[in-house]
């Protein structure tokens, strides 16, 4: 019963390098606990992968009936789109975990501690990116099983996966912001606006096969940039279109995540600091 351990909490560091280390430590500790969830509750990962894996099967079954703009196999065309869509759906996980942690008072407890302001958000990034790596590995294996191939070697293929993770990383920050402002029930309905957003892109159909006005929107969709860049790097068909957006997919695959982060990193940190429910 006698407490013997002397506890001294160090003051939060002031120089930038120590601050960064402090934030990264917090991020790792928070992220680590999230990873326990996957390990101890494997059902979660099944839930997460149900939809993309089903779609891989769907692509396998219907693939032969679909025509790809510019020619080529639909299965080869579809898979990068599916990878992109899965990254985009990941934002639901981010929002869900953030929103329910806030509803449970967990976020408030973090806020009463001498943690780095970015610590919790970085934790989310660690957890969600590790999850996404696993999702991508499983999807790639499934895709290879149904006949998808990458044609430019391992380096560019890994580069494509890197672009997908960059996109996901940017979306983590958007997810944190919306998770902090939306109640859990609203987040649960997140698929309703998100599903059309992922379809109104080059994921399933090439924008050149859409009505011009719709095609233009689809080409400028951030997920389209990442998917088109991936197709290029994988050597998959469907890299067509002569609009500026279609021509500069690789550039946009970096620019869009940068823009998303430029907007949502400050927004989510400010929201975290001034959280009031």
């Amino acid at each position: 019963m006698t407490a013997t351990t002397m506890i001294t909490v160090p003051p939060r560091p002031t120089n930038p390098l120590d601050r960064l280390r402090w934030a990264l430590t917090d991020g790792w500790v928070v992220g680590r606990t999230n990873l326990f969830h996957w390990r101890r509750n494997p059902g979660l990962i099944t839930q997460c992968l149900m939809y993309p894996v089903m779609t891989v099967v769907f692509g396998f079954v219907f693939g032969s009936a679909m025509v790809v703009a510019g020619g080529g196999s639909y299965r080869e065309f579809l898979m990068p789109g599916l990878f992109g869509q899965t990254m985009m759906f990941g934002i639901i996980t981010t929002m869900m975990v953030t929103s329910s942690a806030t509803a449970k008072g967990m976020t408030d407890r973090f806020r009463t501690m001498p943690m780095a302001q970015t610590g919790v958000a970085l934790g989310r990034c660690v957890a969600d990116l590790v999850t996404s790596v696993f999702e991508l590995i499983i999807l790639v294996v499934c895709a290879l099983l149904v006949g998808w191939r990458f044609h430019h070697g391992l380096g560019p293929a890994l580069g494509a996966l890197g672009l997908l993770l960059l996109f996901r990383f940017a979306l983590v920050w958007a997810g944190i912001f919306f998770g902090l402002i939306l109640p859990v029930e609203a987040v649960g309905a997140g698929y309703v606006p998100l599903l059309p957003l992922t379809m109104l892109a080059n994921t399933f159909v090439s924008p050149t096969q859409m009505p011009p006005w719709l095609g233009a929107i689809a080409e400028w969709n951030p997920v389209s940039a990442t998917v088109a860049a991936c197709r290029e790097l994988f050597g998959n068909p469907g890299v067509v279109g002569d609009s500026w957006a279609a021509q500069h997919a690789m550039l946009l695959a970096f620019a869009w995540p940068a823009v998303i982060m430029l907007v949502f990193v400050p927004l989510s940190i400010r929201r975290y600091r001034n959280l009031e429910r």
Partner: protein
Amino acid sequence: MTENVIDRWSPAPDPAAGEAVTAARDGAAIVMAGLSKRYGDVTALDGVDLVVPPGAVCGLLGPNGAGKTTAVRILSTLTRPDSGTALVGGIDVTRDPDEVRRRIGVTGQRTTVDDILTGRENLETWGRLYHIGVRTARRRADELLEQFGLADAATRMVRQYSGGMRRRLDLAVGFLLRPQVLFLDEPTTALDPHSRNEVWQVVASMAAQGTTVLLTTQYLEEADRLASQIAVLDHGRMIAQGTPDELKSRIGGHRIDVVLGGDGAVARTARGLARVVGAEPEVDAAASRISVPVRDQVTTLHDVMRWLHDNEVEVEDVAVRRPTLDDVFLSVTGHGADVGRAAA
């Protein structure tokens, strides 16, 4: 009305803002001076003053929506006040929240422990977030598990814990630092009587280690049991403060509730009982209930029963009970605790 109550009842006048700051320099653990906070149209706190000396356990008593949680949120750096000063350990919560965060522990109304983690993992994780080092966090986790009676459950996932165990683990997280000041927001809400008792023991043991505790509660019994100082909040205003004994002598200790069988005789019975006990009873005519304050339980109960018998009053129920928050409000403000307003 409210001002009168404070004059009549508080042993010392509430400190003005200037005096409060001086008190903090003299080492008070918590100071609230003229603290106000509005949420839209709702005034959550309206110029609240309170000084808690180091090592004290202060019970912040009031119904839902009285402003208790808002006070705790401001003191624990979660919310900024609109005006007024809040000091914790002598440090201004709005000017230097990080310094305050190094000195406090907070346990809110909801348990914030992670279901999928074991009890030990939860404590270790929160400990590491205080940057006290992995080894220290581990040692402290074991100590707390022992102290809070969770050593046997240390390696079980929290989702297998009972409600009382989770609450104790949550309190242990709040007590990780053995903090200078600990805030407990309704620590026993939604617990069964057995678990409530365990929490009370734990809170008492934390206070015994020198931590200043500010706890909010809707239960007079809880404040009486744990607190050395009680402050009563109503509509965001401090309507009374003092020691539990002062509060109890003000409201007259236990009550005898008499519920009449027939109707019509309530007023007459109330007048009769007033003469018997020598104090004014509270009457709830709609429920035919008369509530009399009691000094000496047994003698008074005997006198009341004899009077009821002698006067052939038809009685449905007689019960001796502890005073409640409602009784405090009735005696201090003249109206019952007005429960269920929006601000919390």
